[in-house]
């Protein structure tokens, strides 16, 4: 990793997909791609792995459900048993609805919190801005200038031939 990056700016989804294919085949190190919307199929083009967040959801959901069943049993059958209509203390079927709701609540909210944590999104975070208009209609490809063999001019020509509307070098600022 160096602090020198070359950015290629594209005007359409197709252009950037094509560019990613070509620069990956040529062995460039793609640091990240910035897009105004989620492009389907881009993760395959970039060779990214699937997110492991579903496992977190599963674990937290099951934990929430388990704790809730225990809590309902403990309150109704152990801590202060109250006879309601002669129903058994451990009326497990009657505990299903609340258990389900708590499972969904815990799984849903904590998945989002974990996502915000992993993606490092929080109020006051300064967004990386390599190029204006990324949240509007520009697609930005950020290449890492890995070592001395990186040829800026060649890269510039390559990206331009791939329909880049702008190619530029960014040094040391991490786009902030």
């Amino acid at each position, binding site marked *: 990793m160096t602090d020198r990056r070359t950015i290629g700016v594209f005007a359409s989804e197709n252009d950037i997909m094509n560019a990613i*294919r070509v620069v990956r085949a*040529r062995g460039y190190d793609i640091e990240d791609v910035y897009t*105004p919307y*989620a492009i389907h199929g881009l993760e395959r083009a970039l060779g990214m792995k699937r997110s492991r967040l579903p496992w977190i959801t599963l674990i937290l959901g099951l934990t929430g459900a388990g704790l809730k069943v225990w809590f309902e049993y403990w309150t109704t059958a152990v801590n202060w048993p109250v006879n309601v209509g002669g129903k058994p203390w451990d009326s497990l079927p009657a505990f299903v609805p*609340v258990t389900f709701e708590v499972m969904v609540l815990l799984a849903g909210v904590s*998945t989002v919190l974990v996502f915000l944590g992993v*993606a490092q999104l929080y109020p006051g975070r300064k967004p990386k801005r390599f190029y204006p208009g990324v*949240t509007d209609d520009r697609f930005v490809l950020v290449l890492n200038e890995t070592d001395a063999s990186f040829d800026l001019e060649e890269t510039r020509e390559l990206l331009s031939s791939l329909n880049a509307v702008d190619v530029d070098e960014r040094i040391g600022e991490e786009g902030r």
Partner: protein
Amino acid sequence: MAELLQALTRPLIGGDKTPGQVTEDISGLLNNRPGPLWWAGFFLALTLLMVGVIAGVYLIRTGIGTWGLNNTVGWAFDITNFVFWIGIGHAGTLISAVLFLVRQRWRTSVNRAAEAMTIFAVICAGLFPVLHMGRPWMAYWMFPYPNFRGPLWVNFRSPLVWDFFAISTYFIISLTFWYLGMMPDLATLRDRAKNKVKRFLYSIGALGWDGSYKTWLRYETVYTLLAGLATPLVLSVHTIVSWDFATSVIPGWHTTIFPPYFVAGAIFSGMAMVLTLMLVARKTMRLEDYITTRHVDAMSKLLLATGMMVGLAYATEFLTAMYSGNEYEQFVFINRALGPFAWAYWIMVGCNVLVPQFLWFRQVRQNFLAVFVLSLLVNVGMWFERFTIIVTSLHRDYLPSNWSGYTPSLVELGLLIGSFGLFFTLFLLFIRFLPVVSMNEVKGVLHIGRGGHGGHGPGGNGHGGPESVRPTPDPTTKPEEVTA
């Protein structure tokens, strides 16, 4: 077949938009000063809300004796309004979660507004049980927390406690889902804001979103997970609401058909409300290119389908009563159709079963005025459905000496009016300060239905599916051997 292909290749968004134009159109709405129409609507909504506030303050100061309830009819307007508003919310979740999972890409134009509707409807719904408690400042007793009363816990076997958990979860998950979907759009607004205060507020909301694809990838995963969780949740919420009735031993309530019947009715009423709101928004906010005949057509068909399910449930209830041989059950249904509240029953049947039948005709589905009027009638019909279910089952008790009537008091009417005021006030504020159409999602569906003519925007190959953006590698830049 040709017609089918044509339907698949019809553009979702009109006007040959580019992503830049989408940003301009939607965020531009927030830059203009609100027109006289918005102010008129806002003051009307605020007036209605004030009526509700006055009724609410009087109610809390005096007690629920100010309502028209009596010993026999112990539930009436408040629970009707509660079920009505909760039902309205369900279409929002259907559009945002269920249609997302089944890849109905037309939802992108309406999901933001529909989710907002869900949240505001749940807020309106939540007010009624709290007010019905009589001592709303004790509402936190619903929550099982360690207390000095024993600790005496809530009764987890009671559907009313299930309801508390279901509604709270539904509200929190809907809010999370709405906010998550809005984050990238808030970043767009932040990057465009000229005003310092606005930029600051939007940047807080955007949480530093910068469009990094690594984040997008996780974001999509989380969005799908939430959709997957919200789908069974939305079914569970109205199921549990129906259990408030079905677990009792009141004739007309004690039936197993209630959960599916309530869920279908909820989606039916909510879809009508989405249509009402979106048709108004389309006209007043110039969203003609975003909400097209295709969207209205699809929603009208959903309205028709759920309306038929509701109609089927009405008929099934009668059959069950007849077939059960239970005279109390039979009496309740004959009393509904022919008794003192027959007018409410026939408004319900007319608006919910007969009126939607017009939607079989394409001419009606493409006539926005007709759809608007139909959707209003369905809203009316669904309110009366809940009123009929609740009041007619209660007002004729097992003992004829208990029989009574029911007339709502002014306070109850005021609260109903106030809930509409609250709903529309919140909705009008939403369209003033937040993007009413999901910009990032709409940008992702622009290519749908645009034939192979490239040149602008993300030109697809016209298949319309999520896989349709697979570019053909440029033959002039053949990948070379990697030497590094």
